[in-house]
């Protein structure tokens, strides 16, 4: 399914290898926009986990690893090769010898050590510290109990040895925008917030706070012949309607679509051929709190899954901008089980299960929900009559999104509706169902299953990716059967792009995050953009 999706996306785009061979063109300005926030919090991207800061990161910075959207996995970025010890914990990186920072400093092992220490510095309280924690000795450093991170060892300027806490794939944590590498020769670290310096294909030029960030081509970028573009204006536009007008007016080159726009664009001749779709790694769900008596019984949770007609809601409300969920791990996960069917819509079975569990007369519960149109109050309102038919009364409890996070992590809910990260790393995604994961971390439904734990722990130790995927697939199926949540859907992200744009990729981790150095603009672009 995933292969088909990716292929379809690439064909519909006319991008990737085939189109690139057809003749890339250098020059031009990309006006990039996305619907996240309305301003950049800071240009010090190590300090910010927000999606909008990822757009700057992609242009200006590079991390040790990066995400390859075509292969759907993390790949080495700043190292040309790596050697891994037999137990999988020690990685020796041979760094690129042609990578240069925008301030002229060549990349060395010192820059990586400096950057990881800065991210993990307890005084900074940076969000990337949890990713650095996979390195041996980082926990002690983060806690302020050590002066150095013992797992980081410089062999020479271009060779770095990193010892990890276990046989993990370090690509996932160390490809994050909060773990990018900064130059170690900048005296005033606070300058990163206003004048960022990185290893990326574009140099920071200007930031108009609340409006846009402008970057320009870096002539000494290590990938030969890249980037193609001269300039990128990265603009944030939170309003769907305003973005729609600007896109149709050809003022912006790409636009992320909501459900309503997706439906409208599909019906328009001039727009429908330039849509890029991908199954993103998010699972929308309603989490049940087992502290609420009826949810203690697995049959009740299963009954709810049977009582709701998820495909109908996806079709009518979400305008088909989603894929029905058959478990926690999404379509694009390497451990996705294509043979596992979603819960069938079967109210009679739901009633029978409820009766068996002693709730033949039903019960009432409250769903804490944000206003989000795809995974908030409108969805709770849609399930209301469906659950009523099997005797369950649902009451939406509307809250703002930051209050939702607060309520869920403090276990202050009967049920909640949310969209949660469920990839790309299946080991990390399923950590949220491991009984040793704190409720406030991401085990929001306080899930605990000895069978699941056994499989998960085995997967943690497994070094063969195929065997590990198989163990995680089985673990995921246990979660599906236990139904600690109502499995709703996996997000289908949709991007509309102008016909003169080439090189976009179906990035399953976040479609709006694109490799700018691959993008090029052809001759049909308006003059102002060429």
């Amino acid at each position: 399914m995933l292969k088909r999706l990716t292929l379809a996306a690439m064909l519909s785009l006319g991008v990737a290898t085939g189109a690139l061979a057809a003749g890339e063109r250098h020059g031009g300005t990309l006006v990039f926009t996305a619907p996240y926030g309305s301003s950049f919090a800071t240009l010090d991207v190590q300090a910010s986990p927000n999606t909008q800061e990822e757009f700057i990161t992609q242009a200006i910075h590079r991390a040790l690893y990066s995400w390859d959207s075509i292969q759907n996995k993390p790949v080495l970025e700043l190292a040309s090769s790596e050697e891994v010890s037999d137990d999988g914990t020690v990685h020796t990186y041979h760094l690129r010898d042609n990578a240069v920072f925008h301030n002229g400093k060549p990349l060395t092992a010192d820059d990586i050590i400096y950057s990881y220490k800065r991210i993990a510095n307890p005084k900074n309280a940076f969000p990337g510290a949890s990713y650095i924690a996979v390195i041996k000795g980082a926990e002690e450093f983060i806690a302020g109990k050590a002066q150095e991170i013992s797992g980081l060892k410089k062999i020479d300027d271009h060779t770095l040895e990193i010892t990890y806490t276990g046989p993990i794939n370090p690509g996932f944590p160390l490809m994050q925008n909060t773990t990018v590498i900064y130059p170690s020769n900048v005296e005033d670290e606070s300058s990163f917030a206003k004048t960022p310096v990185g290893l990326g294909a574009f140099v920071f030029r200007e930031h108009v706070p609340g409006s846009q960030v402008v970057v320009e081509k870096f002539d000494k970028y290590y990938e030969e012949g890249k980037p193609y573009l001269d300039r990128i204006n990265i603009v944030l536009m939170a309003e769907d309607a305003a973005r729609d007008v600007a896109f149709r007016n050809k003022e912006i080159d790409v636009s992320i679509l909501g459900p309503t726009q997706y439906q409208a664009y599909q019906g328009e001749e001039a727009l429908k051929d330039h849509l890029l779709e991908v199954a993103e790694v998010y699972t929308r769900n309603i989490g049940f709190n087992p502290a609420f008596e009826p949810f203690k019984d697995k049959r009740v949770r299963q009954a709810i899954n049977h009582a709701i007609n998820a495909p109908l809601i996806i079709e009518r409300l979400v305008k088909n901008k989603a894929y029905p969920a058959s478990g926690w791990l999404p379509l694009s996960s390497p451990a996705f089980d294509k043979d596992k069917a979603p819960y069938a819509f079967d109210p009679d079975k739901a009633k029978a299960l409820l009766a068996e569990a002693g709730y033949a007369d039903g019960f009432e519960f409250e769903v804490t929900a944000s206003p989000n149109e795809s995974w908030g109050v409108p969805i709770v309102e849609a399930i209301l009559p469906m659950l009523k038919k099997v005797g369950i009364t649902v009451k939406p409890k509307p809250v703002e999104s930051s209050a939702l996070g607060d309520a869920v992590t403090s276990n202050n809910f009967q049920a909640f509706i949310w969209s949660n990260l469920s990839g790309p790393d299946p080991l990390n995604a399923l950590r949220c169902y491991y009984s040793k994961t704190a409720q406030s971390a991401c085990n929001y439904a306080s899930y605990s299953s000895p069978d699941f734990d056994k499989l998960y722990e085995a997967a943690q130790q497994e070094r063969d990716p195929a065997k590990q995927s198989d163990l995680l697939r089985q673990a995921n199926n246990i979660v599906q059967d236990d139904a600690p949540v109502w499995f709703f859907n996996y997000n289908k992200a949709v991007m509309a792009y102008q016909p003169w744009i080439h090189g976009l990729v179906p990035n399953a981790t976040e479609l709006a995050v694109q490799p700018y150095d691959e993008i090029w603009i052809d001759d049909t672009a308006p003059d102002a953009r060429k």
Partner: protein
Amino acid sequence: MLRFTLRRILQVVPTIVVVALLIFVIFSVVPGTFAASLFADGKRAADPQMIARLNEEFGLNKPLMERFVTYVTDLARFDLGTSFRTRQPVIDLINDRMGASLQLAVAAMVFAIVVGVPLGFLAALRPGSILDTVTMIGAVSGLSMPQFWLGLLMMYLFALQLNWLPSFGYGDGSLRNLILPAVTLGVTPLALLARTTRAGVLDVLNADFIRTAHSKGMSEAKVVRWHVARNALVLIVTTIGLQFGSLIGQAVVIEKLFAWPGIGSLLVDSVAIRDIPVVQGTILVIVLWFLIINTAVDLVYAAIDPRIKQE
């Protein structure tokens, strides 16, 4: 006049103190925290250690009273605090955005005055005429139209259909980018000004001294210039002042819609992610702005009509 001016300025201080207190109390009781907002979109798992580190760094784990004392002490030193999100001084963030907001508010007000006042005047001089009827229908529509919808309409018409103007953004700060948001923001004060001017002028036109001036054989133009305009001015200036004062607050919606980089969009963003120091600072600046304009209007008012300061 000096005493009056001083008294008005001193009245600003208690108002600011009360507003500051209110903001602190409100944002202490609303649910949601900055740390929780970092993963509110579900794009990453919550990290309890990070939440604890952030809460400690921002002093959010301290008792409410202690936080309140810190807040007031800082405020007394004109320190608006540090943003949770950007870790920069709040005053710097506001400074970065204030220029764009002022630009938008001034442009909107100029548009409202240049169009609204003459329209109101002309309508009042020819009551019942087609111009009067059209102006008043237009004014009522302008007042009742939601700004958000009007903005979209403007974008659709002038950007998408006619292709005259850019539909969004600050661009390079050129006038072309300013026109659509300024006109959208200016429509409400324009409508109000047209109505107020018309009412004010009609009031003056019906006054005894105008009849006297006419009976003495004074020309229509002279009557309007010397008597009507001057007397209607008090009401018009007040309306302009009050509208200008509230414009920065009203700009919140317009700035969001047109991706305009003012303090309105800064405020909305900061509320959503619970960046409390920025919310407090921005609201205080907006309130202060309103009070300053209000005071200035009172002073101008007193200068135009000396009876005011006696009251």
